[in-house]
């Protein structure tokens, strides 16, 4: 059986122009592992939108961080400081990872 380790998967949906601020805050908080996915469109309290026909730093991105459960609070504090005044969503899911030495 493949060896796996408990971890947390944090998914942060934020506005594209804020991406560099969020990743800078993560690096400062010692969280250097994350993956950024593009977002086509969405809907929330501020209404619905789509990236169709928009160029440059428009719309939103999804930042996925996998990290050890004991680092979760550090990450959430750092992320919340950047994200709070802006629209977006922060979700946390339990998961297992291979190659735990990379986290």
């Amino acid at each position, binding site marked *: 059986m493949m060896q796996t380790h408990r971890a947390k998967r944090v998914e942060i949906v934020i506005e594209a122009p804020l991406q560099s601020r969020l990743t800078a805050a993560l690096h400062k908080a010692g969280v250097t592992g994350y993956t950024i996915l593009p977002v086509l469109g969405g809907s929330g309290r501020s*209404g619905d939108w789509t990236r169709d026909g928009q160029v440059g730093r428009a719309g939103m991105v999804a930042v996925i961080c996998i990290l050890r459960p004991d680092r979760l609070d550090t990450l959430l504090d750092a992320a919340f400081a950047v994200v709070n*005044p802006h629209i977006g969503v922060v979700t946390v899911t339990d998961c297992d990872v291979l190659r735990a030495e990379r986290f």
Partner: protein
Amino acid sequence: SVAAHGADGTLFAAVGAGLVLSFGLPVVAFGLLGWLTRLDATNRAAIAAHYGSISIVTFVAATSLLTARGVEAEGFMVAVAAAMEAPAIVSALWLIARQGQGGQMDAALWREILLNGSIVLLVGAFAIGAVTGQPGMDQISAFILAPFQGVLCLFLLDMGLVAGRGLRAARGQVTAGAVAFGIVMPMVGSVFGLGMGLLIGLSPGGVALMMVLSASASYIAVPAAMRVALPQADPSISLTLSLGVTFPFNLTLGIPMYLSIAQTLTGPA
């Protein structure tokens, strides 16, 4: 174009005029919006920043119309366009600060505005042109300006779609007064551009481009900066006006109008 006109003096005057226009036009827009709409100060400041800044696609469309009509324009207008992109954002934030509401300006935003990709590209293209002399500039502008047409079609391919969607999304807030602003403000801006162009003594093509830059509203660089600096402003109103009303207006009726005004007023140059 640069060397050909041997107009180093005019170059700095034109860039200076661009900066003045980009700093000043938001104040005009802020006032015009106050008169034409009942939008709050934050939204008026955000929209004003869009109209003080410029749209590179509108600028490129105007240059290709000039070339199609055999009208010469100073090569350094590329640099004037680059110079006019950022100041409007600063003056919009000043307008808001004056009203006692804080916009979030931080070092990262400053760096982003100044290092904004397109500014780096345009200024870089201009620098290479200056270094390699006249032929270099033509070669570069053949790379930078001509191929932009290709990009232009990607915008147009979507423009029809996004303009429609933007209008629906902003339903309530986009009142008749706001739409009127989207058509009146470009014309008001072009008059200021005309004045500056004549003042410095640019060629008919140069005056026309100064009018186009003042008349155009940003819909790429400024919206991103506003999401960071003025999160309370509703992005769909300013995008609907700059992309859904002013951009199509400039592309179809505006540019030909500004060119003929520039040609008549600069006389048989």
